């Protein structure tokens, strides 16, 4: 079994997040592994953990990111959780990529991995990147690779070359299947990501991160980055701060004060 987990380098949601010249500021001071990709890593590692020992030995989980060099933070964290290999696709031509550019680069990375002869059975992603909350890259990677994609999995099973997924959408509870190779995104409800142990944390420091350029993996530069983007950023500005909060301490009249506020502002 060979699994690629797509991991994104994003600004920590607990930090001050901002834009610089209409691009997400990924200052290494605030950059981190997209938290929701930990669920994807966990799902991949569990699939391998369930294999018999000899099959596990012949299997691998590869973390793949499309990011500038600072993105290594996300790959180191992936090593800490237990991935076998980490690859970063980095190129100036990728700067300013939209969803399609990102999916193109991820798919090219997967194909390049496969050029050594071993197929990638599963590409697993998080349910969303917390910087943009798009939730569309997994479906697009599926389309780029021409493979079925099942998204937002809550329950994941892989057996006999078939992926079976249980999921809860707002509309329905569903069970879906797809033959491998396939693309899968996992919801944050799918699992609780493991805490890295001391040994893995130490080992992650010195593990090698492979780096590929756009040319290395056969990306057409006109299809990605600002050149290939089908939208143009016009502006990004912080919202004006909210007015000072009107704070009432309840001494028996708090509910009445709340009702009065809502009535006064014609909110009810």
């Amino acid at each position, binding site marked *: 079994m060979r699994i690629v987990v797509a991991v994104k380098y994003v600004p920590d949601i607990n930090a001050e997040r901002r834009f610089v010249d209409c691009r997400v500021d990924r200052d290494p001071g605030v950059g981190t592994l997209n938290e929701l990709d930990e669920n994807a890593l966990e799902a991949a590692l569990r699939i391998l953990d369930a294999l018999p020992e000899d099959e596990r030995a012949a299997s691998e989980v590869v973390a793949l990111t499309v990011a500038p060099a600072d993105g290594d933070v996300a790959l180191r964290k992936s090593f800490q959780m237990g991935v076998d290999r980490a690859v970063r696709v980095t190129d100036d031509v990728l700067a300013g990529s939209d969803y399609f550019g990102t999916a193109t680069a991820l798919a090219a990375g997967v194909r390049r991995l496969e050029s050594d002869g071993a197929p990638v059975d599963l590409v697993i992603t998080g349910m969303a990147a917390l910087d943009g909350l798009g939730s569309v890259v997994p479906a697009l990677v599926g389309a780029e690779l021409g493979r079925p994609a099942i998204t937002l999995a809550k329950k994941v099973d892989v057996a006999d070359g078939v992926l079976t997924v249980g999921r809860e*959408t707002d509309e329905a509870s569903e069970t879906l299947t797809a033959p491998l190779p396939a693309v899968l995104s996992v919801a944050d409800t799918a699992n609780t990501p493991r805490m890295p142990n001391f040994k893995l944390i130490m080992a992650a420091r010195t593990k090698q991160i492979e780096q590929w350029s756009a040319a290395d993996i056969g990306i057409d530069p006109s299809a990605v980055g600002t050149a290939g983007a089908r939208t143009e950023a016009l502006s990004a500005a912080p919202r004006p701060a*909210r007015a000072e909060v009107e704070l009432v301490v309840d001494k028996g009249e708090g*509910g009445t004060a709340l009702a009065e506020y809502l009535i006064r502002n014609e909110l009810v």
Partner: protein
Amino acid sequence: MSEPTRNRTVLVLLDPATEVRSSALELLTIARGLGRVEAVTLEAPTVEVLAQLGAYGVETVHQAEVPTGVLRDAGGDGALHLPSVVAATLASAVRRTDADVVLAPATFGAKEAAALAAHALGAGLVIDAAAVGEDADGRVVAGKRVFAGAWDTRCAVTADVAILTVRANAVVPEPAEAPVATEVDALPVELPAGTAGVVVTSREVKERTSGRPSLEEAAVVVAGGRGTGGDFGAVEEFADAVGAAVGASRDAVFEGWFDRYIGQTGVTIAPRLYVGAGISGAPHHRGGMQASQVIVAVNSDPEAPIFEICDFAVVGDLTDVLPQAAAAIRAHREG
């Protein structure tokens, strides 16, 4: 509403076609500001739906005709709403009508369908626009609230076709000046090879029975968290007094106290009024509600982080504050 400057054709995705949700009425309203509006459905619209579409100025509904063999192989009727099928339908509709813009709601399924359709068409894609308009050159321009509603961004679509998902509560729905007669047109849909393979082996549709507005579309939302201690009674009583939808924090849902949560990984909302009770205001939760117009919180901890983003707050026990407020509002409404 201003007149569109261009003679555009705008398609609005209506899925399911058995009801017109307020988010769909918003999409139709936005669409009329951009050009001539047509709707796209996966199944036959009901008579009530057709009447509502007519009131909103929709002359044509394109109803997908998905090859039955393909559908059967993918698991039957349940497969009709798979993003790959919806995407193929949207792409077929764009090609057939030469449409310039597609608008879809901001559900996970619709986002994926929009992305796949844009992939097939080479269209520009905007996910979760909070405002849609045009610039001086006639390009479609979208406004987005990002980083938990802390930043406003704008972008223009540079491709010939623009596909956008639009967040609920972006505009107030407005019927057309005069209603029109709505016709249903069959839309042959071809499913591209390659997306095949996903099979829906079971599908249980969730009932929407609570009688309350739905969380993603409500103008007022009341949410309960861990501070309820598991009893949502006070939260629900208050919600019903103000006619609100009810939601929760993820912790409350993981405890099994409620079924749907608000936040970055749950439902993202931007109602006119959000009331959070017994919710601390973690960044994950804020990410899904901070774009609300007015934010109110009830929390017993004067240091609760949610107070930092509130317009009005009560430091107190929610089991005291909410019932008292509900009673006062009921009295006001009756008085």
